[in-house]
C-alpha cells in the first residue's frame, strides 16, 4: 500500500540538497550523461552517482548504464504525480463534507 507521507518525506530529503536540485533542473531539459551533469557542478563523478542514487530512490530520476556511459533522465511517471492525484481525491471529499455541513446547517424551511 502506498504511503504518501513516506514518499513526500523522501522527496523533500532528495530535493533539500541544492546540488540535487540543480541536477533535477538540468535534467528537466532532457536526458544527460552522469559526467555531463558533474562538469558544470564542479563535483566528481562519484559524487554525482551518490546524488543520483538518492534521486532514483524517490522515483524522480531514472538512470541506465550502457557500456561506460550512465544516462540519466527525469522519470516521467514520478511518484509525485500519483501522490498529487490521491491528494486531489482526498481534497475533493473534504470539500464535499464541508458542503454537507453547510447544507445540514440550513434552517428547515429553506430545504
Amino acid at each position, binding site marked *: 500500500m502506498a504511503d504518501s507521507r513516506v514518499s513526500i518525506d523522501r522527496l523533500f530529503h532528495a530535493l533539500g540538497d541544492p546540488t540535487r536540485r540543480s541536477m533535477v533542473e538540468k535534467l528537466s531539459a532532457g536526458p544527460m550523461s552522469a559526467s555531463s551533469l558533474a562538469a558544470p557542478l564542479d563535483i566528481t563523478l562519484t559524487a554525482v552517482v551518490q546524488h543520483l542514487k538518492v534521486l532514483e530512490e524517490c522515483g524522480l530520476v531514472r538512470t541506465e548504464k550502457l557500456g561506460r556511459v550512465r544516462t540519466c533522465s527525469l522519470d516521467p511517471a514520478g511518484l509525485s504525480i500519483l501522490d*498529487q492525484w490521491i491528494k486531489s481525491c482526498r481534497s475533493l471529499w473534504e470539500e464535499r463534507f464541508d458542503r454537507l455541513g453547510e447544507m*445540514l446547517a440550513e434552517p428547515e424551511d429553506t430545504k
Partner: protein
Amino acid sequence: MPEPTVIHNTFVIERSYPTLLEQVFAAFANPARKRRWYAESERHVVEQFEMDFQIGGYERARYRMGDTTPFPGVPLTNVGVFHDIVPGERIVSSSTMSLGDKRVSVSLVTVELLPTDTGTDLIFTHQAAFFEGSGGPQMREQGWQHLFERLARELAH
C-alpha cells in the same frame, strides 16, 4: 523492467455534525439532497447525476471540468453501485472514475454514521486502486509545477 502500475491508497475522513442522524442519513439517501453537497461544485458543471439508493442500485454522474481544473472541458464520469445499506448506520459502495475515456481509479467507499450527544459523527473510508498513466501529460506538468511550488514553500521556512 516492468514496474507495478497500480497504486493502492486508503484515507479516512471524520466529521462531527450538530445535526440529527436521520437528517444526515437523508443527505446521503435522497438524490436531490445528495446532489447539492456531493455533485454540485464551483469547479465543474454537473451534466448528469442519478442515484438509485438501494442495494444493487447504481449511481451515475458526469461532470464537465471547469477552467480552474487541470482539465478544462474534459468530462469526468463516475459509475457506482451500492453494496450494503443499513439505514441510519452505514452505506458501502464502489465506483469507477474516468477522465475522458481513460479509467483513473476504482474505489470502495464506506460511510458510517454514529449518533452522539451533540448530533452525528461521520466516518468516511475511501480505499482505491489508482492507475498508472492516469491524468496524462497535463497532469504530469501540473504535478511537477505543483511539486516545486510546494517544495519552495517548505524550504522557505
